[in-house]
């Protein structure tokens, strides 16, 4: 949809918009620059303090026929497709704070602009946590984490964050505020529309509040680090672990370059081609038994070296491990970050194909869930290198189409002109209708989801 653009943004107009929205926008380019999306500075930045204020802002902007890009901490603004123009950025970070937490109910309600790290800090006092380990953990907001559907390796034991979203209060482009789901751990009353907002990249509406299911922090946690000469054997070990009754919390696999970035591993076996890290947790006895069982499996699978990480070292290691998924450790100006999702049994083949196509790639995988994160070094972008990047990626697109892997891009350097990959069997027609129904004015980031949606 071709939209009107906010063209003449003199101060009086911005003031008028601000008055109607109930919150004063940033208007000067210098003030708006920190909110740039893939290098494009927005014309206005609104930072509402409440959902009601957000609703007024959205109604006001939509009435002008302008588009809105919702932004949390801005950690993923380099996601392709990059915008050609940005009218208004709706900054969610002032809508923040834990609204309700009853530990014995295992639920917490937060404003979506709350930082993930702040939520974890608040929950820790009760011995609980939101069971996910997304990249950009220090900065990302709850809304950003859910909108981008990033999931860390803890998904192996706790499921992806989508499964722990119980309810949501959202604002649509007509300004209506609606609640979907429930505030209790179990409900089947009506459609679970919160699921649509998870992974929608802010293209359906603004997430105001979220109710999440939290989990007790395991009493004990231990890590097993196993070195492997061959990717296939490491993946086999991961599959054996995932099918065993050991129920580890998470399993990650790293090539030499990405393992090198995990500071806590320095000195374990830096020369290993492949490093498998298994996070164990539970009761004290349970974690020990789990770690013993994991060690036995990796040894019998042919690991050349097995180390145990105590809770402190595991915690230190995980600070880096979680950042290796999704580009947090790789500057967006130098790397193209993408995810290839396959069946767990195909991870080894995915990694092998990636090493052939991109010998300089840094790869991290969550082999139990079939996810590979590839970071491809690229040069700074100009028009010709943008074309080169697209042609470099074509074999990867072809591979994913042929093998039915799901490919998605997390970040590409400013100036690249990539579209979001679309798998052949995606129900695009239904997705278009979802967008048209929930955001009929096409206000929220039109054209930036996938297939022109």
């Amino acid at each position, binding site marked *: 949809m071709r939209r009107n653009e906010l063209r003449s943004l003199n101060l009086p107009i911005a003031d008028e918009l601000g008055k109607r929205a109930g919150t004063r926008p940033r208007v000067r380019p210098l003030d708006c620059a920190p909110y740039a999306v893939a290098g494009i500075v927005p014309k206005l930045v609104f930072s509402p303090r409440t959902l009601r204020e957000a609703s007024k802002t959205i109604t006001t902007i939509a009435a002008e026929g302008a588009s809105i890009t919702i932004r949390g901490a801005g950690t993923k603004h380099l996601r392709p497709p990059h915008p050609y123009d940005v009218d208004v950025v709706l900054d969610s970070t002032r809508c923040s704070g834990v609204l309700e937490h*009853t*530990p*014995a*109910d*295992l639920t917490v309600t937060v404003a979506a602009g709350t930082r993930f790290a702040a939520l974890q800090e608040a929950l820790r006092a*009760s011995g609980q946590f939101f069971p996910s380990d997304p990249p950009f953990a220090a900065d990302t907001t709850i809304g950003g984490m859910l909108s981008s*559907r990033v999931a860390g390796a803890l998904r192996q034991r706790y*499921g*992806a964050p989508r*499964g722990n979203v119980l309810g949501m209060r959202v604002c649509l482009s007509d300004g209506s*505020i609606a*609640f*979907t789901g*429930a505030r*209790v751990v*179990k*409900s*089947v*009353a*009506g*459609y*679970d*529309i919160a699921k*649509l907002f998870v992974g*929608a990249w802010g293209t359906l509406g603004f997430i105001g509040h979220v109710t999440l299911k939290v989990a*007790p922090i395991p*009493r004990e946690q231990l890590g097993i680090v196993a070195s492997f000469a061959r990717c296939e054997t490491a993946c086999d070990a991961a599959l054996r672990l995932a*099918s065993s*009754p*050991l129920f580890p919390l998470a399993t990650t696999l790293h090539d030499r370059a990405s393992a090198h970035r995990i500071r806590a591993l320095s000195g374990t076996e830096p020369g290993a081609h492949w490093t498998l890290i298994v996070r164990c947790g*539970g*009761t004290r*006895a*349970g974690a020990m*038994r*789990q770690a013993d069982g994991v060690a036995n499996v990796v040894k019998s699978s042919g690991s050349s070296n097995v180390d145990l990480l105590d809770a402190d070292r595991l915690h230190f290691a995980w600070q880096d491990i979680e950042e290796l998924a999704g580009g947090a450790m790789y500057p967006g100006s130098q790397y193209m970050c993408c995810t290839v999702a396959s*069946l*767990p*049994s195909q991870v080894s083949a995915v990694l092998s194909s990636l090493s052939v196509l991109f010998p300089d790639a840094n790869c991290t995988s969550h082999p139990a*869930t*079939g*996810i590979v994160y590839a970071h491809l070094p690229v040069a700074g972008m100009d028009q010709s290198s943008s074309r080169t990047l697209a042609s470099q990626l074509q074999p990867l697109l072809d591979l994913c189409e042929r093998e*039915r892997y*799901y490919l*998605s891009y997390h970040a590409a350097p400013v100036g690249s002109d990539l579209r*979001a*990959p*679309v*798998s052949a069997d*995606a*129900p*695009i*027609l*239904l*997705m278009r*209708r*979802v967008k048209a*129904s929930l955001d009929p004015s096409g206000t929220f980031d039109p054209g930036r*989801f*996938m297939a022109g949606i």
Partner: protein
Amino acid sequence: MFASLLGRLRSVVGASHVSTAPGDMSNYQYDGSADRALPQIVVLPASASEIAGVVAACNDARCPYVARGAGTGLSGGAIPEQGGVVISTARLNRILEIDVVNRLAVVEPGVVNAHISEAVKDQGLHFVPDPSSQAACTIGGNVAENAGGLHCLAYGVTAHHVLGCEVVTPQADIVWLGGKTQDAPGYDLLGVFIGSEGTLGIATKVVVKLTPLQQDRRTMLAAFPTVEQASQSVSDIIAAGILPAALEMMDQLTTQAVEEFVHAGFPTEAGAVLIVELEGLSGTLDEVAADVGDICLRNGGDIRRARDEDERHRIWLGRKSAFGAMGRLGSNYYVQDGVIPRTRLPEVVTEVVEIGRRYGLKIANVFHAGDGNLHPLIVFDDRIPGDYERVVAAGADILRACVRHGGSISGEHGIGMEKRDCMSLQYSRADLALMTRLKNVFNPGGLCNPAKIFPTSRRCGESARTHASGVLPPEVATATGPAF
């Protein structure tokens, strides 16, 4: 029009798989709830393309249709309230693929829930959702209702264990939502499809996750003088960071009825009984079991551990017989399904008792206490005029209490016909408008399972029973629900 639709349906699925016989129609008029309505035609397709053909024929004839699995639902989700065509999934009952390495199975919607776990148990795997009716209910119905079960506290409900569905949309297209691989790009249409009660399309293949079986388990039975003490123990167990595989509670009225019925060994003098089941690696459960024991003792409970598999079996048989045992207390029962924050259990139970007193009804209480999911069982006699209406009104008051305490009007049975008029207790007009928008994305013609979920002109608590006589036939009246 009817004749032409019938002819077309016969050509799609074969004449022997289409019925209009009155006897057949009456078999398809009800599910496990009290409502019922007759279809005009029942079809039994054998493939997704046949279902698409049936849906296309119904669309052309402007005829409503509803998919039906085993008919064990408890909210009228599979009842053809507006008549029309019932699409039975009974012939779509094959397990198509078991992939042990990737821990998944591809099954048709008519596969019985328990058959999946049965098929993979030798590989050390199982399908986790275990609704009470798992010996009869089908995966298609589980997906439609987002079924739960006794073990969802630790492992989640159906939505957590389904990776993808092949779906015939109300436009008669065959599409995949999700798939075998996680993270399908695009909007999470699978997420909204699961639990949509058959109003957004018909699942024709389901990719389910398989989970390794735990090595060991510990089942304990704790008896408390009062429901409050048992509830406090539940809160304390969760607050201590313990997440049992199951945490079930029954009040005294229930345990007394169960004891008379199956002799499970429940202490009938106790005000409430708590079943706690822990799972984990062998040799690692003592620490947590000791903590659970301490918590129960501190709250005035008396705890004992099932010494062997036989005792464990009897404890669970007792729990699973709770619904059936209501026959000891009256000729009929009505099971309610509400959710509250579990910390509000004592207050809400007091309110439920008061509601029973107000309406002059006997109410037994069974809870998935770990989830805060209440199943008050209201005992009544349907032969007494007005009794059923009082039951429905009392049930609505219980739901009002649940919502007032921040809960939900359904934890696992769904809205269907039974609770559609109570939706506005939990949701505002704007909330329901958002749901309507979504419904219109998938089902703009409204022919796919019409008149479900969304409120009608009746008020919550007004009897919505749709059959003409107001009296249930004996076979329904004696067992308005599955075995437990």
